[in-house]
């Protein structure tokens, strides 16, 4: 048996977020279900040309 110092001993009713942890562990290896669908780039954005496209708005 391992001796646990008193200041590291948790209350008997310690309640860690097990459900949250399980959810996260499942999600971290998968892309989350609520991810965006592949977006459509704004018109005129072909992925080539200048890196910055800026417009002045009124």
């Amino acid at each position, binding site marked *: 048996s391992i001796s646990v110092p008193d*200041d*590291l*001993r*948790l*209350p008997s009713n*310690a*309640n*860690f*977020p097990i459900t*949250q*942890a399980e959810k*996260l562990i499942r*999600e*971290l290896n998968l*892309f*989350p279900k*609520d*991810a*965006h669908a*592949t*977006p*459509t*780039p*704004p*018109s005129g*954005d072909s*992925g080539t040309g200048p*890196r*910055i*496209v*800026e*417009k*002045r*708005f*009124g």
Partner: protein
Amino acid sequence: FPDLAAQSGIPADELGHHAGYYRLSHTHDARMFYLFFESRNSKKDPVVIWLTGGPGCSSELAVFYENGPFTIANNLSLVWNDYGWDKVSNLLFVDQPTGTGFSYSSDKRDLRHNENGVSNDLYDFMQEFFSEHPQLAKNDFFITGESYAGHYIPAFASRVHQGNKNKEGIHINLKGFAIGNGLTDPAIQYKAYTDYALEMGIIQESDYRRINKYIPPCELAINLCGTTGSAACVASYLVCNTIFNSIMGIAGKTNYYDIRKQCEGSLCYDFSNMEKFLNLKSVRDDLGVGDIEFISCSPTVYQAMLTDWMRNLEVGIPALIEDGINLLVYAGEYDLICNWLGNSRWVHAMEWSGQEAFTSLPAIPFVVDEEEAGQLKSYGSLSFLKVHDAGHMVPMDQPKVALEMLKRWMQGKLAEDSPQPSDLAADM
């Protein structure tokens, strides 16, 4: 925004408001959306970039509810903000990391998981921005933001400083960085939750003793996470958030961003006007965002950054302030989640050449309009301000004070009455 131009009395084409996309270097297909508001005062004013936290919350939240040039009325018209930070700066709002607000990528690999990725993206963006606006490149540059940006800001400031030292690209005239109600040093800030909650009457003494039992395992887990961990950092996130969740279990529907209020909706505030406004076709056309879906706070980005949450970002700060780059840490006094006590503690615990002098200084009143608006400590490059009568979003709750704070800080006049290193040296 034609209504706005009519109100201002300035023709719309003279307002100098810009929206853009930056195609990120070092990504597969990522685009970063930004808004740029030229100063209402002078093009020679400093360039200020504001980073919203989350992680994954859009910068438009700050534009419309905090320090942007205008706010949204219930009828979805825009109203000038008399205390917008564009009154004293050329102001940039960036939707970052990728997946936030209007920023997007068609490739899932472009999601960012740590401050390395975030700060490199921001640095690359600034290089491109200054290429596009060379007349601004010589202006002073300040990095500001709030909440989880307490992580982004030191990382980005370090990246800029390193880029300057290595003579990479365009020199960026970095003068300072300011963190508002931020999360920077989790080990210290998570320990402060129970002290703050007890002090503010959110929990009782017996709750305090019980919840404090989670502090040692939280500290242990954070140590295992360190500054570069991954799985251990997620574990520490879960363990340490038990402290916060236990407090909220007692606080009920209290708004953890402002304990004087009740939490309304998923973000604790009603931001629905902004969502409606940004989905108007006329606005989307004006901003050039096409059909990109706007998300106020993205759960995808939040989850992608979970390994980053408990990392200590204080470690890079001493090197910056030793090199004369100014740091302002400020906090509204009624915020629980990134409370002033935890922020004050990490600022005081930070090891740098001025630490002893800073800690021994008494706080002085920060006065705006002949009224005490906060309590200030300032020494050398470091300042800490506790802001009265404000929660997590200081520029929303105290717009005039926040603008005055920014203005004085950028001018080096935040604490004109405080002793400075040269004064103390003279005394010795």
